[in-house]
């Protein structure tokens, strides 16, 4: 049987992650990689992470980003960028390349985009042109300084990231002459504000402190505005030291035209067109995807250095002589070392597949969302409630749409699918339901599980603190993952988001379609692992349905947004299952299209076999974790006094109303069949795969 011959390269990833026909993305990846494995790696190796301050050496990152086009990646071509259309996938791929070496450098690259995002999403055309274009580095012949932005939300002081609904920044009218534009006084203090050491402008969330201004809004503050633009002291932080963070104090006078998205004057009151909440909602929805991927990619980056460490473990001393298994394989003689690395790799692959599926979906979703907005505006449907009401009316069509979307091409009603695909509202509701699960799931699971599995990776290289024995900056990556689990919405926020979205009937229609797809696959290709994942998803769906209708012994409803002891574990359980599903989709894509590329075709069979083994391992792990969580929720809220069944403990088969759950749990256990054989094969492959002679960045 053919085995994994080399570690998967760009050709393989381009097919799996669906950008083989996007040379713009491939070029951006190469640019990011050259910076990551050159400048970034040297900064880390030289100890630049040991300072909180923004140093001249760290500032070299900005020059490198400017020169290589990464600064302009977020911009549209009319503003000086080079990629047209949505850029969620592009930003994700660049972020993960940088995070392959150091997460802080990726944050540094993304932070200016975060500052621009409110302007990009909701800004007026004039604001978009001034700031998007101004943030593009000057071209030859241009004489201007590039703008750099910082995003200031972090409410409420003195803490950070507590509640985005509470804004402590204040805005009031400082001067308003008849027929003139109002001048506003803005006070804002920030904490842990990224890019603040060098930002020339800040997009800040503020609330009205004046009856002549209604509600909250976001404003643009410039360093040249009259008043105080104090960048503040560097934030002392444990990780991500290659990104600049400060605690600024801002007290500035600005024209009202700096309100993001503009404003109207009604009865002598300034009414911003968008509240800060509306803007943040549209921004954070998408920017969380790259963060999830920045974490998962750390696990993939750990594979090569760990293999090399294991193989070289006994070389160079008296412990092993050339030609002996001990010399050639080192620690890879031991099954445990191999199989723990399989777990690390499989977790990383599942996270990457989930995150990149979310990024691609976000790219597809962006124009649909704009089409929906245009259509509703054309029909005169304005306001959040009126829009929600209009969208609820197309839920049935949206369900039909996602069912057809997930049905095999050739077996579905193609004419009906095309009809619904052209229906902006039905398509929006369908994709919105999916993205509202995939994006928080990516942020939650990829960051959280990476933090757990990076500990395994560090342990696999000894983990006793000698840096030469911990190549690939694994220790720093382990710590970085914890911050990534927190910033841009900590785990609890993602679980709350999922609580509100994972029971959406449109999403559940997708999920049931996946189950049908997996069951069909399990019939035609038994032993793949599709069956265990199908059972896991069925088990989860049954549990959700049960919890939505069940009560605790005191008669309180179990599935309720206040009962985080119920909803949060159920959200976690779902996340365990999503990664393997999208990993399988990626592997099947590789299997179907790899043969068309002569580079990939050579060795394709071994590669696909290996990836399918990783999938099987992760599908079994995911179903096991989900099953455990579901069992705790289904049984755990029954009173200790309640008998399981009438026949007594000896022959207990569970209460009648839970019979199907018992059946699914038992079936899930049996579906583990072969998963450990897959792990055996994958481990063996790791002992035989050819790796480079040396890591391509310093240690």
């Amino acid at each position, binding site marked *: 049987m053919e085995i994994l011959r080399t570690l998967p390269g760009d050709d393989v990833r381009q097919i799996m992650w669906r950008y083989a026909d996007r*040379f713009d993305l*491939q*070029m951006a990846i190469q640019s990011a990689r*050259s910076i990551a494995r050159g400048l970034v790696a040297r900064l880390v190796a030289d100890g630049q992470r040991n300072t909180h301050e923004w140093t001249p050496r760290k500032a070299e990152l900005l020059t490198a980003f400017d020169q290589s*086009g990464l600064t302009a990646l977020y911009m549209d071509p009319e503003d000086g960028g080079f990629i047209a259309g949505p850029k969620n996938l592009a930003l994700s791929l660049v972020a993960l390349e940088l995070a392959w070496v150091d997460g802080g450098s990726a944050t540094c690259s993304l932070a200016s985009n975060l500052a621009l995002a409110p302007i990009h999403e909701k800004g007026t055309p004039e604001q978009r042109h001034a700031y998007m274009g101004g943030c593009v580095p000057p*071209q030859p012949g241009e004489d201007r300084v590039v703008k750099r932005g910082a995003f200031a939300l972090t409410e409420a002081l003195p803490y950070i990231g507590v509640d985005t609904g509470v804004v402590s920044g204040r805005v009031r009218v400082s001067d308003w002459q008849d027929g003139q534009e109002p001048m506003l006084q803005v006070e804002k203090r920030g904490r842990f504000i990224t890019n603040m050491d060098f930002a020339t402008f800040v997009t800040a969330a503020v609330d009205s402190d004046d009856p002549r201004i209604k509600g909250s809004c976001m404003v643009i503050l410039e360093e040249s505005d009259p008043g105080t633009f104090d960048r503040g002291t560097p934030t002392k932080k444990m990780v991500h030291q290659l990104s600049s963070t400060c605690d600024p104090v801002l007290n500035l006078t600005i024209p009202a035209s700096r309100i993001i998205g503009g404003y109207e004057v009604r009865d002598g009151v300034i009414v911003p067109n968008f509240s800060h909440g509306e803007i943040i909602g549209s921004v954070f929805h998408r920017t969380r995807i790259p963060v999830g991927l920045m974490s998962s990619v750390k696990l993939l980056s750990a594979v090569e250095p760990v293999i090399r460490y294991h193989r070289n473990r006994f070389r160079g001393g008296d412990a092993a002589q050339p030609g002996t298994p001990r010399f050639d394989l080192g620690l890879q003689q031991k099954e445990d070392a191999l199989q723990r690395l399989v777990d690390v790799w499989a977790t990383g692959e599942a996270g990457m597949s989930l995150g990149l599926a979310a990024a691609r979906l976000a790219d597809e979703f962006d124009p649909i969302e704009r089409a929906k907005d245009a259509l509703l505006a054309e029909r005169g449907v304005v306001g959040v409630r009126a829009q929600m009401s209009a969208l609820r009316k197309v839920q049935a069509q949206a369900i039909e749409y996602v069912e057809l979307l997930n049905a095999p091409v050739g077996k579905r009603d193609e004419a009906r699918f095309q009809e619904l695909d052209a229906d902006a509202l039905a398509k929006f509701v369908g994709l919105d339901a999916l993205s509202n699960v995939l994006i928080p799931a990516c942020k939650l699971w990829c960051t959280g599980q990476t933090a757990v599995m990076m500990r395994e990776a560090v342990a696999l290289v000894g983990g006793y603190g000698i840096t030469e024995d911990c190549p690939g900056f694994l220790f720093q990556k382990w710590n970085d993952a914890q911050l990534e689990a927190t910033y841009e919405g900590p785990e609890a926020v993602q679980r709350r988001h999922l609580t509100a979205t994972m029971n959406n009937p449109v999403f559940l229609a997708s999920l049931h379609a996946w189950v049908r797809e997996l069951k069909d696959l399990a019939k035609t290709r038994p032993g793949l692992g599709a069956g265990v994942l199908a059972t896991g998803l069925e088990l989860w769906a049954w549990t959700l349905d049960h919890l939505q209708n069940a009560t605790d012994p005191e008669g309180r409803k179990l599935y309720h947004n206040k009962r985080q002891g119920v909803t949060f574990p159920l959200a976690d359980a779902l996340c365990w299952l999503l990664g393997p599903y999208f990993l399988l989709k990626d592997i099947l894509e590789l299997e179907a299209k790899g043969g068309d590329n002569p*580079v990939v075709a*050579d060795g394709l069979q071994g590669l696909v076999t290996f990836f399918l083994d990783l999938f099987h391992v992760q599908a079994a792990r995911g179903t096991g974790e989900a099953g455990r969580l579901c069992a705790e929720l289904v049984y755990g809220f029954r009173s200790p006094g309640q008998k399981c069944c009438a026949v007594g403990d000896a022959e207990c088969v569970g209460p009648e109303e839970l019979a199907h759950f018992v059946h699914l749990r038992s079936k899930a256990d049996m579906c583990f069949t072969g998963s450990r054989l897959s792990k055996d094969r994958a481990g063996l492959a790791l002992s035989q795969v050819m790796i480079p002679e040396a890591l391509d960045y310093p240690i």
Partner: protein
Amino acid sequence: MSGLHIVVCGSIVPDPLQTLEPVTTPAGPGLKNEMMLPAILDPWAGHALFEAANLAKSVAGSKVYLVSLGPKAKLQQVMMTIGQKAPFELVVADGPASGFTDAAEVAAELAAAIEAIPGLDKSQLLVFGGWQSASRGAGATLQMLGERLGITDQFQGVDEIKMQADGSFTVLERIEGGSYQLSSCAGTPAVLGWATGNLPEPPNNPQIGMANMRLIMPALQKAKPAKVSTGEVSFVAVELPKQVRETRVVKDMALEEMAKEIVDWIRG
């Protein structure tokens, strides 16, 4: 002086960090998993390309072509980086880029590809390339290519070219003993086999990349197959240069003695 037509010949080599293990294949010697190993532009050819781009910038109306004999799928990957570094038009001959192909056959294919470039003005032609390659380093291909194109003004181990307003130029060539030879040439055409040159690798510029890709992708799609092989050459054995490491473990040696031993070793 009218614009130059600078043709840079260069192909890909396996990333030098990879494990390069010689094996025997049905087509002759090769490297284990060669097709799957990531590749880079041959560094010597890279120097030639960056010098060509720099020269083209200084002579108005000049144009740079990169003529490459290699597997087009792997060339495409390499172009995602190289295509961002300098403006050029790619010409592809789809064939092996192995270090074991016969230099004469490679030269013939490259000559045919250059002759077929539409609108190429041979009177304004400069043929650039590496004075050797990172895959084998025979240093023969470029010389044979020049002969096939009828260009007899040839320079090897070049580190610098300076163009004059009248179209003549001077060339700085590496010669033995760490010295340079300065030559004057009346004008094009000429062949220059570059050593390292004097230029750093340019940073990636996506605007250049996007402009180049409009021509690179079609060039890759319409690449003609090139028939090159090991020719009449028979390889008896192939092996990598051996790493030599002689280590002595010595305890309690005085610093002066250690220094003296090192100095003696350096002096030979």
